C-alpha cells in the first residue's frame, strides 16, 4: 500500500451514470488486476474505494458509477485536478489457475476490474470468453473494448433489446445475432448466467451479489469472485468489511476482494 498524489488526465461519461477517470502518478503498488484504490475527497470523511480497470505504466484507468455523494463529486472533477489516493489495496485476481480458455463474467460496474484481467490473460495467449451483463441497453459500456482485446464477447441485457432500433451503437445490433455491425458481439436478453458457454477452463467474476450467487450455482469449474462491501479504511485495520469463509474470517479489503469459489460461504 502507498499513499500518492495523482493527476486527473481524463474524466468522461461512458453512460448516463458511469464515468471513466484516467489518473497519472506512482502506480508501483498496483500489481494485480482486481486490486483497488481508495480516494480521498474534499468534505467527505471516508475515502471511496474504486477498482482498477486498466493499468498502463504510470496511468491508471478507473470506471465508477455515480451512486452517492462521493462518486457525484468525482464526476464533477476535471483534468488537471489532483487526488490523494491509496494504491495497492486488496489481493486481486490470480492468473495461474486460468487454464487455456478462461471465462470472465461481469455485471454492471463489476465489469471494469475484469478488463485489466482480460488484457493480461490475452497477453499470455489464452482464449478468453467474456459475458457482460447490464439491466438495459443504455447502460452498456466497454463491450467493444473487451472485443478489441481479442475476447469472444456476449452482452446480456436483463430488460431485453428493443425491436425498433433507436439511436446508439448498442441498440443498432440485431438481437441474438452474432457479428452484428461487424462488432462480433453477441447480444442476448437475460442474465449473465443465461449465456454461459459450454466449455471453459476456469472463471473469474465480479458484479452485484445476486449475480455472484447465480454464478456460483451455474458454473461447473472452479473460479474467483470479487466482492464488494462498505469499507472503513480499505487496508485491513478497522474490520468493517469482514465476512465468514470456509477458511475463517476474512476482510474483503485486505484478504479479498477476490475469494476462491471453494472458500465462499454465503449468508443465509
Amino acid at each position, binding site marked *: 500500500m502507498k499513499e500518492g498524489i495523482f493527476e486527473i488526465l481524463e474524466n468522461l461519461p461512458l453512460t448516463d451514470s458511469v464515468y471513466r477517470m484516467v489518473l497519472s502518478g506512482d502506480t508501483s503498488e498496483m500489481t494485480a488486476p482486481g486490486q483497488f484504490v481508495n480516494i480521498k475527497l474534499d468534505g467527505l470523511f471516508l475515502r471511496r474505494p474504486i477498482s482498477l480497470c486498466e493499468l498502463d505504466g504510470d496511468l491508471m484507468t478507473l470506471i465508477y458509477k455515480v451512486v452517492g455523494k462521493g462518486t457525484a463529486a468525482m464526476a464533477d472533477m476535471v483534468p488537471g485536478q489532483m487526488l490523494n489516493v491509496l494504491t495497492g489495496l486488496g489481493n486481486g485476481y490470480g492468473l495461474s489457475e486460468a487454464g487455456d480458455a478462461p471465462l470472465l463474467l461481469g455485471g454492471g460496474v463489476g465489469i471494469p476490474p475484469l478488463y485489466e484481467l482480460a488484457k493480461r490473460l490475452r497477453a499470455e495467449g489464452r482464449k478468453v470468453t467474456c459475458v457482460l451483463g447490464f439491466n438495459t441497453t443504455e447502460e452498456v459500456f466497454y463491450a467493444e473494448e473487451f472485443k478489441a482485446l481479442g475476447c469472444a464477447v456476449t452482452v446480456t441485457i436483463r430488460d431485453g433489446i428493443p425491436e425498433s432500433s433507436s439511436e446508439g451503437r448498442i441498440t443498432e445490433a440485431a438481437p441474438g445475432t452474432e457479428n452484428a455491425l461487424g462488432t462480433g458481439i453477441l447480444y442476448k436478453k437475460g442474465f449473465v448466467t443465461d449465456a454461459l458457454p459450454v466449455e471453459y477452463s476456469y472463471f473469474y467474476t465480479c458484479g452485484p451479489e445476486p449475480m455472484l450467487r447465480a454464478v456460483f450455482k451455474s458454473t461447473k469449474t472452479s473460479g474467483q469472485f470479487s466482492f464488494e462491501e462498505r469499507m472503513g479504511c480499505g*487496508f485491513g485495520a478497522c474490520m*468493517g468489511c*469482514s465476512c465468514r469463509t470456509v477458511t475463517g*474470517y476474512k476482510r474483503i479489503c485486505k484478504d479479498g476482494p477476490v475469494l476462491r469459489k471453494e472458500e465462499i460461504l454465503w*449468508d443465509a
Partner: protein
Amino acid sequence: MGRLSIDFFGETLDNPVIPASGCFGYGYEFAELYDINVLGTFSFKGTTREPRFGNSTPRIAETSSGMLNAVGLQNPGAEKVISEELPKLSKVFRKKVMANVSGFSVREYAETCEMLGREPQVGWLEVNVSCPNVHGGGMSFGTDCSQASEVVRAVKAVTKKPVIIKLSPNVTSITDIAKACEDAGADGVSLINTILGMRIDLRTRKPVLANTYGGLSGPAVFPVALRMVHQVSHAVRIPVIGMGGVSSAEDVLEMMMAGACAVEVGAANLVDPYICKEIIETLPNAMDRYGIESLRELQKEVK
C-alpha cells in the same frame, strides 16, 4: 528527555500520541507503512476471551465529519492474540503496548485481563466497558456505577499492571462513572468511546447498518469528547486519557489543555494511515506556535 515526552502511569512515553483500539489492528499492519516505534504506544484491537466475528455487514456508514461503526468486537480471542498476534507485533514494536479488553461478564473481563496482563509486552490494560455495538455486554458495564466498579475490582485483583477504564459517553453523567471507577481502584480512565448513532438509507428506508445503530467517531465528536475529558479530569485525581475525533497536533494540545495526560487517535487512522506519525512530527511546531516548551510542563500546569 524530549519536549514531547510525558509521564504515563509511572513510565515515560516518548510522546502522548496513542492510536486507539479498533483503528490500528494489532499494529503490524501499520508497521508496513512506517516505523511504529515513533508512537507513544498504541491500544490494540479490543480482545475478548473467546474469538468473535462481530455483527453482520454493512457495519460501516459515513456521516458528516465522521463515521459510524458497528463492528461488534471482531477479534481472534485472547489465546490467539497471545500465541499469534503479539509475537508478530514484538518483531516490529519494541515498546510496551496497551491491551484493550472487553467482555460479557465480570468473570470474563478478569480472565482476559489476567491472561493478557501476564504478557511482558503488555504495559497497560485498557478495559472497555463502553462498546456500544454488542448486546448483553460491553457498554452495559459502563453505564452503571456499581457494575463498572465490580469490573474494576475484579480486574485489579488479577493484575499488577495499570488498569485504565475506557468510558462510554452514552450516559447521564460520565463523571459519576469515572468517580466510581476511581473509588474501585482504577489507575486511570480513557474517554470517550463512540457515541451511539444511526443513518437511514433513503432508497431502502432501512438503517444503513445491519446492526441498526452504531458508534459515531471522527472529527464530529471532538467537541463532545473535549467537554467530557474536561469534566472528568476535574472530577477525578487519576490520569485521564483523552480521545474522540483527534486528527491533528492542535487537537492533541487542546485535549491536553482540557486535562488529558495522553491522547488516543482513532478514526483518523482509517482515512490517513500515516496520521499519527504526522501528528508527532508536527507537534513541536504547534507547541512553538502556542508557547508550550514541553508537554510534561503542560501536563503539570493543567492538572
